[in-house]
């Protein structure tokens, strides 16, 4: 299948609405989860869902736009990480396409793969744009790694990977659970579902 055919298949009206809803989910779910005071943000749950249901390009677009809109409504810093969000969606979509969202344990593997791609893009942004520090609690970890004598690059790589691993694995698991719980009437509308069920 050529890329343009693939794009046409991925971007139905349904997909467009899914992306719009997913963007809102990304922004709102954090509010829901904050009640539990857990070390996860789930701020890419919508992006991962789009990746699984509608494919990598749609997932990437959902991630990219989420952070750009985030930049407009609350903090411009989020916009700087838009490429990271985009890669999360693409990685989730590719994982789903190759059948990595079929079972719960494969979903965990997907979570790890997403974290790897996430880190590859996030590390240079953190390093060159923010000097490795972004003013959050995770900075203590970077500082600790530096104090152990690691270089800045290594410290940031380890920090980004570990601080995202749990979040992305939980995100992938919940996305898997939601897709499994969706009635077939709804899932049948999306192009990516065949490789999931």
């Amino acid at each position, binding site marked *: 299948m050529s890329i343009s055919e693939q794009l046409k298949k991925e971007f139905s009206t349904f997909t467009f609405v899914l992306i719009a809803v997913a963007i809102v989910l990304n922004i709102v779910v954090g*509010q829901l989860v904050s*009640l539990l005071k857990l070390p996860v943000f789930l701020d890419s749950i919508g992006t991962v869902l789009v990746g699984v249901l509608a494919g990598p390009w749609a997932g990437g677009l959902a991630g990219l736009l989420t952070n750009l809109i985030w930049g407009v409504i609350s903090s411009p810093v989020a916009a700087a990480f838009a490429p990271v969000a985009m890669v999360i969606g693409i990685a989730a979509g590719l994982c789903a396409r190759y059948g990595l969202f079929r079972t719960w344990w494969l979903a965990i593997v997907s979570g790890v793969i997403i974290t790897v791609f996430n880190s590859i893009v996030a590390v240079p942004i953190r390093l060159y744009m923010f*000097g490795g520090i972004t003013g*959050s609690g995770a900075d203590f970890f970077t500082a600790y790694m530096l104090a152990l004598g690691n270089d800045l690059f290594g410290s940031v790589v380890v920090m980004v990977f570990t601080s995202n691993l749990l979040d992305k694995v939980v995100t992938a698991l919940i996305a898997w659970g939601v897709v499994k719980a969706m009635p077939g009437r709804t899932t049948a509308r999306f192009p990516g579902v065949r490789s999931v069920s």
Partner: protein
Amino acid sequence: MKGTSPGMTLFVEGRSFVHALNPLTKLAWVLLAGALAYGAPVPSSAPEARWLVCAALLALDGCLLLSAGAAPRAWGLVWRIMFPLALFMLPIHGLLYPGNRTVVWAWQGITVHREGLVFAMTVLLQVAVLLSASLLFVLCTHPADMVTAVTRAGGAPKLAFLVGSPLLMLPAMRARAATVQAAQRARGLDSEGNIFKRAKGLVPLVKPFLLGAIMDIEQRAVALEVRGFNSRSPRTAWREVADSPAQRWARRAMLAVCLGVAVYWIVVKTGLGA
């Protein structure tokens, strides 16, 4: 987009020169300011020269924000973002930056180094430039203008839908999230126990919300298709966004400079020029 309350976004109402600029012109400026702050050629022997570049850009952004009447809002936001950043960055790099050589201050085995502080200051200034330039865009562009500009630029009304509709959906979804929160709490959701007990609440909290939102998609999609979402005929906009030949040329020039900086940066970093 008529129904969007400006209070939803950071937009500050106004009639200034900056407000009247085309959103794309402002976006091009964000790109240019970032490119200059991070990549403008300065002698490597004097990293402080970059501070001058950044200070000039900051001053320019400050003046524009003042003239647009958005300066108080911008000042508050810059502080809220830059202060925690500085609070972490100055000590961490001052104490631990791997390139540290020159001691500035030492007390009881704690030594602050010059290289780390210079590095941290440079990064802070660069982030401040990028932040103030993007605030210029965010504070002085009405969300509806942004959506219209996107439609006009790419001829892509569907992309404009993706930018605009989340802004409209957000308040309703936030309310729904609050309802789910309250409902599960009323059913005895444990939000105070140990981490495992709290983690148990994750699925009952998130899953109904996600499923509910996805179930809505069908209705929304049907509503859109009925209203000609897939129509190929050109759309007319209720809202007109100003543009001028001068702005179009300015945008091209700004993008050209960005490209130049990027090429210079690649040549220097990869040593192709040497």
